[in-house]
């Protein structure tokens, strides 16, 4: 039962909850994506949900961590013929397969980005938390999309676990080995022996299981994740309070 799952979950004091929905969603499987024929995973990836929340509210001071997602509607797909435009002119023809009538409830919280010690003065948990909650109430600060740019999505406040979903009593469903997310250089927690961040670009994979409609995501630092470093020691953008970043105290929210 989903209620048992909900009871086992611990909400953090800086947790946010929201519902995101859209007519279509496309969380493309990297294996088919590189060929140009995109096929969606059955469920959203960690990274896609993190991206949605970053569109709602984000500052370099903190990192969003997605705790769980609840799949509300039955997983359905719809294939479409697509005419992608090539960079060197002309067009291609492809088949993309989208998820239909996607609706998800998401539980997430934020953690300070330790790779940016210069932003310590901006770490006002209460204020960030309240801005984030207000932003959710307004539907987000930037465009929301479910996985791929053409899949417009909409964000609303909700209580995680509220309402009935298709998979509430479904039991366990295993989606196999799938993509979890990317550790971008500015958020990658990996450090060398001297404690200096390595600024690597990592990709993470995991074995995804959904129980009664709820997927509990392992945290990006979890040791159960399969991790591969693709690029080492990358550049990261610098943020300096007052120069190219407004301190949270003077941030006006979105009123």
């Amino acid at each position, binding site marked *: 039962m989903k209620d048992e799952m909900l009871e086992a979950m611990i909400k953090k004091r800086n947790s946010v909850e929201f519902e995101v929905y859209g007519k279509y969603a496309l969380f493309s499987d990297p294996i088919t994506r590189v*060929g140009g024929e*995109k*096929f969606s995973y059955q469920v959203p990836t960690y990274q896609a949900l993190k991206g949605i929340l970053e569109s709602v509210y984000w500052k370099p001071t903190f990192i969003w961590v997605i705790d769980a997602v609840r799949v509300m509607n039955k997983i359905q797909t719809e294939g479409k013929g697509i005419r992608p435009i090539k960079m060197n002119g002309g067009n291609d023809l492809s088949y993309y*397969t989208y998820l239909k009538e996607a609706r998800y409830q998401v539980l997430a919280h934020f953690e300070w980005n330790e790779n940016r010690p210069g932003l310590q003065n901006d770490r006002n948990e209460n204020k960030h938390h309240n801005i984030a909650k207000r932003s959710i109430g307004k539907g987000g600060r930037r465009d929301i999309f479910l996985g791929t740019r053409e899949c417009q999505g909409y964000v609303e406040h909700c209580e995680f676990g509220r309402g009935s979903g298709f998979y509430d009593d479904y039991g366990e469903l295993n989606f196999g080995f799938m993509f979890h997310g990317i550790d971008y250089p500015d958020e990658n927690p990996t450090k060398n022996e001297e404690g200096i961040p390595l600024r690597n670009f990592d990709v993470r994979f995991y074995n995804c299981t959904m129980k009664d409609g709820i997927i509990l995501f392992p945290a990006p630092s979890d040791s159960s994740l399969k991790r*591969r470093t693709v690029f080492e020691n990358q550049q990261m953008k610098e943020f300096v309070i007052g120069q190219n970043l407004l301190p949270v105290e003077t941030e006006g929210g979105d009123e």
Partner: protein
Amino acid sequence: MGLFQNLLETYEKCSEAVGIVQVDADGNANEKKTLLPIGHMTFKSQICVTIDEDGVFVRASRDNKETTIIAPCTEISAGRSSGIAAHSLCDQLDYVGDINEGKIAAYLSQLNSWKGNIPELNAIYTYVSGKTMMDDLLNSRIFKESEYQTKTDEHGESQLDKEKIRKLGVRFIVQMTDNMVKVWESTELRNAWIDNMSSNSTFNEEAFDYLSGEVVHQVAAQHPKNINSLTGNAKLLSCNDTSGFTFRGRFAKQNDAVIVDYIQSQKMHQMLRWLIANYGYAADSQVIVTWGVDRDTEVKAKVQDNSLDFFENMEEVKTKADILSGTKGGIYADYADKLKNLLQGFGNAKDIKQHFCKICIAVFDAATTGRMGLVFYQELPKNTYLENIVNWHSDTSYFLTAWKKERDEHGKDKNTPIHYIGAPSFDDIVFAVYGKSHGDKSYEILKKNTRKQLLECMFGNFAFPKNMVEMAANRASNPMGFMDLNGKFSENDWKRALSITCALTRKFYKQQKEEIPLELDTDRTNRDYLFGRLLSVADKLESAALYKADKQNTRPTNATKLMSAFRVKPHSTWGILYDQLIPYRNQLNGAGYYQSLIDNILVLFEEGDYEDNSPLSPLYLLGYAAQNRAFLKNNNNEKTEGTDNGYITE
């Protein structure tokens, strides 16, 4: 799980069947239908060379026709076109004969790298490196005259035309002390090659395979093509876009974007290729494949079939009573009901959990020649899969007729009609909606799109499309549009389309939460239904009069001719039709029975409905067909014998 993971799992479960050659009904081996071992491919060979275990030539023979064998290959040789890339054991004369220096060297060095202490391989190595094969073959006189050059040299002897024989495939038999080893069939040699492949770990240990998460032995640089033989060049996976931006931007190189292990890729592709070759359901570039992730991958319940075929495929129900052929009285077997009962029994038996089996449905299509995409994929537990199908079969059921090919007592083919209540097949629906094929490509495209739509509809992803019902109803309302090859009205086709359309209409209304019974509902006051009934009575009245005058089936009735107009303007057309019936009514001495029936129907109309001249919805066809059936039934009761013309409606 995803498609790829399920294919890998299926391959593991089918490991016993790997490499075992399937034999066709005519007794010939069919390698295309054989589940190939990884790192192997089918190879066409014509020359068989026998050597002894010391690598000494014994004899050579040549087949009349190319023999397809299963031979080991490397990743590069499997996709070779030009350039040098040798197969690992059996290859063309170009590589094993002494024709091309570079190629024979490539072949030998590759064989050397894996022959180890295996005596058969060492014998072949010794023989091929001796470079005597061409002479041995010449002495064995296996070449055809046309393969010699027309010019003769100074000794009056003709030389071989090497261009013509280069591509001949060679296979080896090694004569050991106690037996003859056909190297292409030897399981030990196959395993030796696979072991050799797995031991070649060339990549760093941090990388993992994106398909399975397992360690990587060798990164697949290219993936196999020819997965679906109808779109032979299309690859399911590809990653070679160096100019566009499918992965460039975030990633620079192919290996940054995705890593697939060669062995896992092989397993996945061999499995998929085998599934498509054996169970694929193809239209144009599209192929639908359904399989169970189990030891026995064949799924007997085929989604695309009509209820009758579907039933015959389910062994559990194949009892004598169920198969009704050539029945006289038009006895209908309600397959959907039977199936439902069967499933309920199945569900109670508690063995569903034990025999838990996953069923995968995948549809592939290629928008361009080079790539194929997965356009539909669903994985269901077996019972859910069957439930979905049963729901479809019961919601879409109607009185249908199928024609079974049988042999009569004189050994001639004859078509026997079988009446059943059930769902039409996918292709029947295509016929009702779009008509018959004229052999052009656009029809194939319509067909594949409809198949996919129906599949999505069957597994709950879509409501049954209204446009299909409307189109089928438009076609069925225009009986004069159904013509046979001679341009004459084809009643057979029309009645077939009509009953399929009725099935679709029932499905459509069912989904609007309106259940319309199969038999005539004399209480239904719906306007469309009643007008349909009126049309049927007019039709019956006229044909009864024609029958009396012994002119039955000489021409279509007025009601049939006016049907399309009737649909668009029911009220005014009914006036015309009613007037046209006057002479027939007179012939039948006033036709009291039909007249009272018409009056009874007219009474049922609600206020203003009868005068409403707006077009009828597809529902009127159900009224029409149900009234027709009611007449047929009365007929049968009176005569206590049925018509055996095989039609549902008369």
